[in-house]
């Protein structure tokens, strides 16, 4: 992000980060850099003046294909919104939300001011947390005798069978093992989701990613985002810690992150977007 001061130059655009109901009083002031807060109909728009060379329609398309530029600016976007979120309820905006003039921004915020106020009420005292659970397939196979009744039944039968029958049963075991792994994954993901969901107000499932996309060797078995009342955060963390410990022996890995700006739970705005 460029460090520019607020001027009336024509080559400046307005970057909108978030809306809040109050001006944030930062605990560690200085971290917000050149962020400005514009009052519009009782709401406060967190903005920065940015250069056309970075964010004009034409240049933004060019810049987003530069991974280093994208990485630095996307992280800065998240950092600033997270900073505001620590002291105020925020409506976060997407990366690269740009207005060509202050008038245009004011018009936009004024037009939807009542909806934004309702949204801020809805978001108040709640946090967005992401839960991804992965499973080490090798460990599941190692423990399959204790995790699957069908497999343990076959194991019992093999023990008391003639070599010929044991061979056929062994083949059957190999055939059903993939199905049994799926059953185990479903059972655990449901169990984990149900335990955490009891402490949450809303949830959204995200797509289960392949190892290539998740960048993990283990299989993803749960990908969900929760909206949690702040009062329940400690219990939510305790519950996830407990399950992390309880299921580590069978190769479950918990990836819990938060609080995120409440992007996932803003889709209520779709109702008046059209």
């Amino acid at each position, binding site marked *: 992000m460029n460090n520019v001061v607020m001027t009336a130059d024509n080559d400046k655009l307005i970057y909108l980060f978030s809306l809040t109901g109050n001006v944030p009083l930062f605990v560690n002031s200085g971290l917000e850099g050149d962020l400005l807060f514009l009052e519009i109909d009782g709401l406060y728009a967190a903005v920065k003046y940015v250069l056309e060379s970075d964010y*004009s329609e034409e240049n933004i398309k060019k810049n*987003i*294909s530069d991974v280093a530029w994208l990485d630095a600016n996307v992280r800065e976007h998240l950092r600033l919104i997270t900073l505001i979120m*620590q002291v105020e309820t925020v409506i976060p905006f*997407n990366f690269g939300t*740009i207005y060509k003039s202050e008038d245009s921004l004011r018009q*936009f915020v004024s037009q939807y001011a009542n909806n934004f106020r309702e949204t801020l009420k809805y978001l108040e005292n709640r946090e967005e947390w992401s839960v991804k659970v992965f499973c080490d397939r090798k460990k599941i196979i190692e423990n399959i005798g204790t995790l699957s009744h069908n497999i343990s039944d076959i194991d019992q039968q093999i023990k008391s069978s003639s070599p010929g029958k044991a061979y056929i049963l062994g083949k059957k075991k190999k055939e059903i093992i993939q199905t049994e792994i799926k059953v185990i994954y479903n059972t655990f993901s449901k169990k984990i989701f149900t335990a955490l969901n009891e402490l949450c107000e809303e949830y959204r499932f995200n797509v289960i990613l392949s190892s290539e996309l998740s960048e993990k060797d283990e299989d993803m078995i749960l990908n969900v985002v929760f909206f949690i009342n702040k009062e329940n955060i400690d219990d939510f963390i305790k519950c996830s810690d407990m399950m992390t410990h309880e299921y580590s022996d069978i190769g479950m890995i918990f990836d819990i992150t938060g609080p995120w700006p409440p992007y996932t739970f803003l889709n209520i705005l779709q109702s008046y977007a059209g």
Partner: protein
Amino acid sequence: MQDDFYDINKEITILDVLDRVLTKGVVITGDVVISVADIDLIYLGLRLLLSSVETMEKMKAVN
């Protein structure tokens, strides 16, 4: 502090960040917007980059 939980405890991947700040959130946006086609290109570029980094790491490990 819970507020710093994800900063302190782990490194957030660029894909995790992009999944939120590009594809979710307020539908009505600014005068300049990043289109769905551009978002697809961002992801494609990143995945190509990630896979080439992975290949490089594997090659390093082999050598």
